[in-house]
């Protein structure tokens, strides 16, 4: 029930970020002169983004880390609502006498705002928030080589956790309907895991369990479909 100093710091950071986003949005709006007629000011679009970093891992390190990540977004003027889904499989210990596997999916949902509302070349600079959730299985097989000759083989399935993300990103049009850009994520406030015997090392979509905060990076290529 009591907030720790660290929690207060994080809350203060979130609050400051929200204030910054609101004030920047207000600045962006105040800078927009009435150059365009009222009727033309509304634009709605749909965008599908694919993360190239996840796909690249499938090619270069498929045994250690594989998966994919897609992002669908509804764009309403300078506002965005993002739905993100991904799957990730991590394997560790290939050079040691153990095999640890973490395999699962994650979802993220949240709004963002484009601070470059009046950019005409499709340039976007966004700030946003996400609620994220991950569900995964993990397993460990370990030949301890101890006096008992123990071989540990254990699985813990359907582990789940959730966290929040503060995001920022840049993207630009590289074709009529094609966009490219990146998103940086600061992952915070992860819910602790309830593990009986095997504590996970990797949490799909988040990162390492022993880090309470993580930073993530996506590089997207997207397809834009204007709806209005």
């Amino acid at each position, binding site marked *: 029930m009591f907030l720790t100093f660290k929690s207060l710091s994080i809350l203060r950071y979130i609050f400051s970020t929200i204030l910054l986003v609101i004030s920047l949005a207000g600045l962006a709006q105040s800078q927009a002169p009435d150059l365009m007629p009222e009727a033309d000011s509304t634009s709605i679009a749909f965008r599908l983004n694919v993360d190239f970093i996840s796909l690249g891992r499938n090619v270069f390190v498929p045994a250690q880390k594989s998966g994919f990540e897609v992002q669908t977004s509804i764009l309403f003027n300078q506002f965005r609502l993002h739905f993100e889904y991904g799957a990730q499989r991590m394997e560790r210990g290939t050079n040691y006498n153990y095999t640890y596997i973490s395999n699962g999916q994650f979802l993220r949902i949240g709004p963002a705002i484009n601070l470059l509302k009046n950019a005409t070349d499709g340039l976007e600079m966004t700030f946003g928030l996400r609620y994220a959730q991950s569900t995964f299985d993990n397993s460990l097989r*370990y030949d301890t080589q101890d*006096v008992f000759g123990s071989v540990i083989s254990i699985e813990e399935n359907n582990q789940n956790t959730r966290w929040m993300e503060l995001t920022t990103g840049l993207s630009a049009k590289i074709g009529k309907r094609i966009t490219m850009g990146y998103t940086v994520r600061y992952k915070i406030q992860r819910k602790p895991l309830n593990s009986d015997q095997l504590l996970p090392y990797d949490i799909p979509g988040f990162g390492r369990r022993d880090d309470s905060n993580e930073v993530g990076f996506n590089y997207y290529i997207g397809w834009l479909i204007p709806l209005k």
Partner: protein
Amino acid sequence: MKTRNLVLILLISIWGCNEIEQCQLDPNSEFLVGTFYNIKDSVARDTLVFNAVVPSNQPLNFYDTIIFGAFFPLNPTDTTISYTFMTDSMDYQLSLSYDVLYYLFSPDCDPSIRYFDLKVVETNFDSVAVVGDVLDLQIPINLEIYF
């Protein structure tokens, strides 16, 4: 002279920045530490001679002589273990229970095993006290055995 000093400083700084081996920071121990005392005066027994110290159902003999204390391994695939301390006159039994948690302390080390909630289930020693119920390198003694 200046170049030699510069190289020396560089070498010292590289050595200074050398990371501590991650695995050495793992606080978990795979052995419980037991110490032996005389029940009459609670003075530590300095030398104990056993015919054998064996865990149940294992063809192992850990010790024939124990000086004050000894390290006893726990089985990571089980949550109970029994030891038999064999002497010429009688055999002492000690049965323990514990919980186990597995995790990767670092992917570059062997998986870590945390033994905790150590309890005495059964014994025919005069008294056994659990003074440290977690097998941790920071905890010097887990069991005090009196007989």
